[in-house]
């Protein structure tokens, strides 16, 4: 606990130095190096939190009569581990990546503060500290998003992010206000002790979903995420996608699972529905996207959906008194959050390396990078396979666990759950398959084939620090896929604390097989599958080379006899997505194409135009924006009144409030 507190203070303390050292050419090294070490400290503190008993700490900072309450329990510990892990990786990557940043002072000062704020959110034990940390997290990350404010689109991204962040903070303020109740106990312990009635609980659920969900990127509150995450420098993008979304999930878990009490089953239904919608819509957006970083941001939305599916299941099971199922579902969700931190950070690092090497993240200008950036390509491939949910990597295990949790109880009596769980199972399966298509496209277009631009043809492999960070995370992805039991057993105390049950111990099995419920029901062994595949590959290669031919001849591509030297004849990113856009996009995005083909003899260039509409923008935010402007225009008249009328307004307000008060009692 003290380690965590000191580390956070040190990170906050590191921030001003960032502004100072930014003037020197190597000024980034002490800041990122320091962040790396301090993140390792957070990681360690998180592990102690997971293993040990709950610890409390009251710091004499903050509001004089409240102080700052900190608490390190298993839940905080788990998310502290995620923060430390993601932060350490991003810092390691940043040491190399930010070598040629034009404005280091715009990043260096805020980076450690951002890390500290995220860690503080996780540790906060009273509403004031929580909100303070939450808003610090929003503001520092907003400053980081605006670091390259002169690039096209970044200013708009920052603006939308700020609006959504304010909105989210407001919703959380309301949440805590409701939870504190009339007694006004702003410490989390007081909130745990009070049990709000049904209506209040419902409102709290909604505001928590808005507050934490908008930060996490839950549809339809996700709109800022694919704008803001890619706008930040890449190592910060990795932090925002890999860690900040997890901190938001922590907020949701802390409020709904811990502070709110046992809950109702329909809460699970709402969360399940939102999760399924988020997963499918996020991955569909990612499929259509041509900018690599924005593609990754949309894929974050998808993965948040998967995590929320697990959380919704856990809520529903817990409310219906099925603790074991709740434990399994929550473990699956948390494990997916852990995995997502790993592979999304890795993928952002890879995207950053590509961005740095080619100067562009536009898929249509990339291609053939595997030849000149072999290490980056290898690590990025590992990340793609992991996020696509392919065995034997880690993404598969968490999705598999979620499926297992869904199949546990078809006989629940609640109709809402009976209908939503199968639909969500299908949605999750669909999202997983679409994610595979999405990342075949991302890797295939960016790294394979022939270069589509001069910049892509002339790339050089990225620096050693970045490669080290990528390979480290790729190895962790593989390790978490091969021996998931090691992570799952660590999550055990978290599930125990929140649902009253956890998965049976996994590392006891001689073969390290994962058995969520019973061996006859389901089991999976990543290690065995991996060994099996490796041995088969070795055997086959040896046998084929031994008995068959080893000869190899290089020649021009066959391509049905008509190879074309122009790289423009390759499939483009838009072309690759076209069948899927036609299947899914016509309904979801009202996408369409207009082909303008000039008649023979006309020298005009032929043109094909795609249209894609974002349903959330069209149906929710644009009407909202129009409504706001309409109201603002009406209210404009109020700004030109006489003093007498202003006084009248004040008077009427007072009377209305008084009357409301009398009616209330």
């Amino acid at each position: 606990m003290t380690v965590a507190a000191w580390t956070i203070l040190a990170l906050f303390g590191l921030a001003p130095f960032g502004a100072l050292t930014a003037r020197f050419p190597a000024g980034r090294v002490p800041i990122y190096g320091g962040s790396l070490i301090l993140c390792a400290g957070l990681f360690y503190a998180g592990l102690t939190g997971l293993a040990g008993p709950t610890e409390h700490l009251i710091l004499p900072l903050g509001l004089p009569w409240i102080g700052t309450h900190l608490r390190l329990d298993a839940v905080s510990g788990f998310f502290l581990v995620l923060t430390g892990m993601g932060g350490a990786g991003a810092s390691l990557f940043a040491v190399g990546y930010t070598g040629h940043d034009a404005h280091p002072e715009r990043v260096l000062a805020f980076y450690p503060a951002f890390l500290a704020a995220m860690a503080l959110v996780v540790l906060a034990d009273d509403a004031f500290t929580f909100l303070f940390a939450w808003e610090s997290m929003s503001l520092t990350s907003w400053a980081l998003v605006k670091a390259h404010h002169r690039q096209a689109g970044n200013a708009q991204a920052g603006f939308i992010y700020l609006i959504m962040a304010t909105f989210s903070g407001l919703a959380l303020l309301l949440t805590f206000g409701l939870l504190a109740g009339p007694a006004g106990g702003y410490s989390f312990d007081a909130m745990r002790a009070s049990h709000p009635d049904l209506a209040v609980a419902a409102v709290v659920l909604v505001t928590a979903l808005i507050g934490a969900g908008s930060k996490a990127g839950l549809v339809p509150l996700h709109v800022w995420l694919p704008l803001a995450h890619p706008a930040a420098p890449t190592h910060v993008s990795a932090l925002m996608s890999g860690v900040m979304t997890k901190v938001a999930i922590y907020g949701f878990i802390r409020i709904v699972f811990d502070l709110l009490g046992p809950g109702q089953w329909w809460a699970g239904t709402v969360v399940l529905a939102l999760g399924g919608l988020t997963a499918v819509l996020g991955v569909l957006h990612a499929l259509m996207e041509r900018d690599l970083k924005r593609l990754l941001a949309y894929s974050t939305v998808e993965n948040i959906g998967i995590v929320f599916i697990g959380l919704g299941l856990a809520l529903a099971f817990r409310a219906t008194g099925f603790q074991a199922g709740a434990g399994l579902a929550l473990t699956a969700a948390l494990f997916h959050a852990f995995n997502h931190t790993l592979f999304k950070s890795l993928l952002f690092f890879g995207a950053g390396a590509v961005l740095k090497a080619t100067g562009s993240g536009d898929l249509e200008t990339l291609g053939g990078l595997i030849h000149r950036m072999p290490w980056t390509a290898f690590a990025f491939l590992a990340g793609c396979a992991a996020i696509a949910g392919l065995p034997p990597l880690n993404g598969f295990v968490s999705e598999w666990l979620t499926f297992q949790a869904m199949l546990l109880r078809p006989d629940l009596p609640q109709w809402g759950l009976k209908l939503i769980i199968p639909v969500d199972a299908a949605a999750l399966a669909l999202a997983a398959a679409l994610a595979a298509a999405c990342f075949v496209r991302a890797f295939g277009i960016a790294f394979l084939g022939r270069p589509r631009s001069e910049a892509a043809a002339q790339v050089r492999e990225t620096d050693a620090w970045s490669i080290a960070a990528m390979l480290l995370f790729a190895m962790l992805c593989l390790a978490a896929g091969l021996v998931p039991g090691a992570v799952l057993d660590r999550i055990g105390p978290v599930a125990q604390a929140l649902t009253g049950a956890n998965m049976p111990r996994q590392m006891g099995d001689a073969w390290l097989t994962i058995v969520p419920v019973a061996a006859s029901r389901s089991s999976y062994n990543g290690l065995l599958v991996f060994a099996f595949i490796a041995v088969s590959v070795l055997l086959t290669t040896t046998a084929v080379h031994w008995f068959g031919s080893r000869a190899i001849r290089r020649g021009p591509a066959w391509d049905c006899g008509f190879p074309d030297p122009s790289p423009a004849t390759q499939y483009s990113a838009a072309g690759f997505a076209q069948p899927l856009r036609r299947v899914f996009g016509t309904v979801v995005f009202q996408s369409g194409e207009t082909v303008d083909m000039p008649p023979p003899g006309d020298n005009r260039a032929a043109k094909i135009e795609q249209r894609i509409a974002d349903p959330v923008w069209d149906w929710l935010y644009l009407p909202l924006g129009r409504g706001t402007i309409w109201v603002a225009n009406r209210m404009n008249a109020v700004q030109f009144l006489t003093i007498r009328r202003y006084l009248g307004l004040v008077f009427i307000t007072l009377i209305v409030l008084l009357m409301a008060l009398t009616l209330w009692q």
Partner: protein
Amino acid sequence: MTAAHGLSFDIAHMLAGGLVLVSFMMLYQDRLTALLHVLGLHAFVLSLSVAWQAHIQDAPGLYIAAGIALGFKAILVPQALRRMIFRMGLHREIETVGGIGLTMLAGIALVALSLRVMLPVTVHADPVAREDIALALSVVLIGLLTMVTRRNAISQVVGFMSLENGINLAATGARGMPLVVEISVAFSVLIAFIVIGVFLFRIRERFDTVDAVAIDSARGGQR
């Protein structure tokens, strides 16, 4: 729906479920001739189901109903419709059904809805009849959906026929439906069919199409 009900329940349930499955095939199929094959299959499954009900309920009257279903609905009506579309030259027609995926999804939602409505209402009823009625309601609703999503008057007739099959299924599932009612329903359908057939020819003579959208436009600006 547990194994405790035994084989007779399983088969009855299976046949009713099969009818729902064929209804979905109908929803999926957008070629007119193939749609008529599916209609024949639909009625065939219905007749099997009715015959099985006759067997387990020990009601010989239902065998006649099954025979009627087989003769009229599985063979006669599809054949007649088939001749009709050949004479109209519609047999190569492919209809534009608005998004098969969406339509199927709507179909599933309808099945869920009918189960949701029927199962809690019939808690005290005979378990065999319960599931049968729920599935029959799904067949009726999907038949309606077929009629709504089709543009062609003939496939709307097909949808209507499948709807009627659903009503039949419900009727036989509930024990003690008098044979007279059954026969009268069958004949009413036949008459409806003849009337519709005649109308179709009249419509075609007049408008040179049986596309319902084109026919609508002849109503003269009342829409």
